[in-house]
């Protein structure tokens, strides 16, 4: 048995540059630029070269791409679906009895 491989938490403790995010999600920079323009994720930094995405953003970009690919919706539709899913998630959590 080899040494364990470290898993990287996908939260706000990690950051990805535009290039790293594109590599992880296997998409071109143009697509990520569109995703940012749709407001699906909001990188820190003023221009593309300085953009930094959190681990949460990576998950969100992957979800948006899957929704786009597997439901045939455009990015605006994927953005809407993600917002509604987040809202649903929030409501489910709030509804859960806190005994």
């Amino acid at each position, binding site marked *: 048995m080899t040494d364990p*491989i*470290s*898993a*990287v*938490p*996908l*939260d706000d*403790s990690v950051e990805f540059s535009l290039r790293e995010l594109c590599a992880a999600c296997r998409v071109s920079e143009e697509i990520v630029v569109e995703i940012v323009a749709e407001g699906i994720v909001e990188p820190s930094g003023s221009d593309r070269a300085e953009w930094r995405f959190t681990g949460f953003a990576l998950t969100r970009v992957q979800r948006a791409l899957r929704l786009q690919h597997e439901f045939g919706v455009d990015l605006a539709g994927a953005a809407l679906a993600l917002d509604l*899913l987040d809202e649903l998630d929030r409501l489910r959590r709030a509804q859960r009895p806190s005994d």
Partner: protein
Amino acid sequence: MEYKDYYQIMGVGRDASADDIKRAYRKLARKYHPDVSKEKDAEARFKEVGEAYEVLRDPEKRAAYDALGTRKPGEQFRPPPDWQFDYGAETDTGTHSDFFEELFGGLGRGRRASFRSRGFDTSGQIEVTLEEAFRGTERRLSLQRVAVDERGRALPTTQQLNVRIPAGVVDGQRIRVPSQGEPGMGGGPAGDLFLEVRLLPHRWFRAEGRDIWLDLPVTPWEAALGETIRVPTLGGRVDLKVPKGSQTDRQLRLRGRGLPGNPPGDQLVVLKIMAPAPQSPAEEALYKQMAETLRTNLRQAMESS
């Protein structure tokens, strides 16, 4: 290998039109897509539906599949000896059933090896206790892989992998294990493995994000007099000063005693005042003395209305 009835999986007849199939797929995808669905076996169902759609949407694959004739789902099945399917360069998604791989899997006949591509990303879930989330832990995972033998046939294998889970993971959190997805083709890099963390329920603690909640039983006199009591936290016991005159449901915050992170979570202690039943005549006498001395009526407001 078990026969799969792709029409039954999609819930359409054998004479379904391309539009019927697309419509059925969209509806099932909305129901079972792991990003959308809360169904228990969503991921498995979505893969099954995706595989069925991959065959039925493609006129050539569908015709080849139809030519096999109808069998019962789950029936043992071997493709005809002269089976040949020219599927072109690429087959779409990552994981397929053995049935699909045998019939349409490009990998099995070595045709994919001629070009270089990165392996697919894979995903899974891991269950972690709160103690493990607090300290970080290691998990041995068994991953289903497809190996290619010397004759270019695809063989399912199981690979063991040790993964270190960092401290401070929260429920629903995704973690990425680099290069542990499916292997690449033609010398291409491997995909990544994405794991979703599920925190297991704990006997006393409840996690909300990085904050940890604890219901703490205290006696009426501990709450009334104010006392320093020992409280369990994930990091060990700490002293907590219960303020004098505390009432039940009062929340006390132990800053930074929740799950680690930047910033770390807090532990929130909810006081639950419990009156022990008297266990002896002496205890009962003490309660009677309290009743006579402390003449408070907590229901006064209700009675005067």
